[in-house]
């Protein structure tokens, strides 16, 4: 499918030994590792082209500006945005959602209005809406879950009604792996002329996401979850919506005329990018996108799919394991628990074998409550993972069980 050995060579961290074992990194849903190409692009920028953007008439500043804007163009093409002006660089997915909740929300929500989320939202797509609906006296509603962790759309036509003003939902769940039927929900919402924000943090890195064919109104994702640097994320928005919203933050780079008492805001996308942006971050994200395009998102999706199927198969064979989320298709992660063993203990023991795996609520406490667990263990995969990583995970889990078998 693709040359796994060559790909792994691109990721220097994979050569690290953790407690004398080679690193088995299974936490890409939290953040991914970075290929040399991205690391070197950042280095090159600081060594050769570093300058502030947009306002210098000298060579370095022109270079920095065109590298920065080229990254925006790459990002626009990557998600098939209709225009580059629709791409706002943020710190991360979280900031993108906060921008929309504050800017769109404060301008449009009023008492009695409803914002519809789902019960499987990441805290990042929950708390901003809690804050703004509370401020405005609006209400939150939630699409519930079916027992196997999918969205229960039975009552969707009641949940989306004339009171609903906004729908915000996750594309692929980071704690269940569920792939949501966002096309259907967008279509229903649009029939009420309700804008929809997609939290694509777990989908954009792993599959082709086309904002025009999905027809979502806003979409957010994080660079650090798709081989890019930390501190850079993306908010996509339809031009007309973004253009009509008030700015979120004020400052340099985002204005035309400034008087002491008022200001005239600049066009998109700069209106939403106040202050000096994370120039190196955007450039690094652009190179990460090049890298993903070179390998091909279809290949990555196929690879992830095979790994997840293999993981489901291997892990199901372990005694006393409970796997959460849909049994059929799912994003490239598996969340589970070993009976009677707390996830943090699992993670600490696996770390002794070089296996980096997440234990916790994965910023989705409502799902933990729904699963009636304190926390889960989550293994998540990306293009650099191999079946052998999963075998090592299975062996490690066996060790965990052996250790816990004692003392009884």
């Amino acid at each position, binding site marked *: 499918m693709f040359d796994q050995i060559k790909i792994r060579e691109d990721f220097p961290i994979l050569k690290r030994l953790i407690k004398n074992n080679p690193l088995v990194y299974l936490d890409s849903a939290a953040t991914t590792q970075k290929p040399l190409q991205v690391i070197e692009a950042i280095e090159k920028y600081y060594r050769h082209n570093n300058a502030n953007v947009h306002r210098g008439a000298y060579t370095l500043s022109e270079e920095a500006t065109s590298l920065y804007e080229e990254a925006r163009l790459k990002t626009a093409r990557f998600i098939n945005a209709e225009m580059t002006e629709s791409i706002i660089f943020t710190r991360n997915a979280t900031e993108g959602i906060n921008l929309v909740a504050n800017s769109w929300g404060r301008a449009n929500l009023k008492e009695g209005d409803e914002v519809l989320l789902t019960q499987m939202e990441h805290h990042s797509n929950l708390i901003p809406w809690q804050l703004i609906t509370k401020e405005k006296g609006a209400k939150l509603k939630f699409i519930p879950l079916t027992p196997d962790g999918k969205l229960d759309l039975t009552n969707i036509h009641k949940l989306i009604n004339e009171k609903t003003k906004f729908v915000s939902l996750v594309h692929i769940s980071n704690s269940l792996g569920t792939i949501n039927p966002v096309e259907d929900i967008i279509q229903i919402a649009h029939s009420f002329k309700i804008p929809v924000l997609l939290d694509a943090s777990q989908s954009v890195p792993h599959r082709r996401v086309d904002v025009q064919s999905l027809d979502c109104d806003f979409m957010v994702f994080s660079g650090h979850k798709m081989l890019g640097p930390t501190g850079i994320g993306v908010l996509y928005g339809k031009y007309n919506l973004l253009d009509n919203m008030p700015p979120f933050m004020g400052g340099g780079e985002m204005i035309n005329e400034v008087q002491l008492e008022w200001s005239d805001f600049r066009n998109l996308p700069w209106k939403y990018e106040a202050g000096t942006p994370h120039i190196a971050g955007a450039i690094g994200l652009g190179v990460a996108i090049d890298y993903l395009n070179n390998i091909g998102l279809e290949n990555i999706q196929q690879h992830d799919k095979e790994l997840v199927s293999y993981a489901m198969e291997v892990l199901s064979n372990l005694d006393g394991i409970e796997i959460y989320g849909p049994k059929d298709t799912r994003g490239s992660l598996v969340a589970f628990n070993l009976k009677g063993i*707390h*996830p*943090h203990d699992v993670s600490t023991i696996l770390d002794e074998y070089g296996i980096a795996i997440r234990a916790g609520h994965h910023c989705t406490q409502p799902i933990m409550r729904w699963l009636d667990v*304190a*926390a889960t263990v989550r293994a998540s995969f990306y293009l650099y993972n191999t079946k052998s990583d999963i075998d090592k995970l299975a062996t490690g889990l066996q060790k965990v069980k052996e*250790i*816990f078998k*004692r*003392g*009884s």
Partner: protein
Amino acid sequence: MAVSDLYSEIILEHYKEPHNVGELDCPEVFAKGYNESCGDDIKIYAQIKNGKVEEIKFKGKGCAISQSSASMMTDLMYGKTIDEAKEFIKQFTKKITGEEDFPSDSDEWFELSALKGVIKFPVRVKCASLSWHTLLQGIKEFENKNELKQ
């Protein structure tokens, strides 16, 4: 130090069958603790009689380290005066952060020193300390209340 030493049999026994689990009605000492870094929580309840811990219970979810620590801690608190309890918490904090060694010749510390392995796992120190800090907080609130009454 192998990870199986961290999960010693003493710890696993307390984890699997923790002592003093439960709630108390109208406890004189009560506090809730929360481990921000992993989401574990705990509630501690104690009854004080003649200035001494007469009864103590805890309830919470957490890892083997935090549950076993709470189980041993509650065992050892029975009969202690408020001041003794506070001093004991202080001593434990010093040991678990590696500032002082666990005593090797003390009955009271015998079981507790099973937690020694935690020192090498800095993120897990919080797990081992959670119940202790929570009790301390409860004691302080209890003392404040009593001061106000006087």
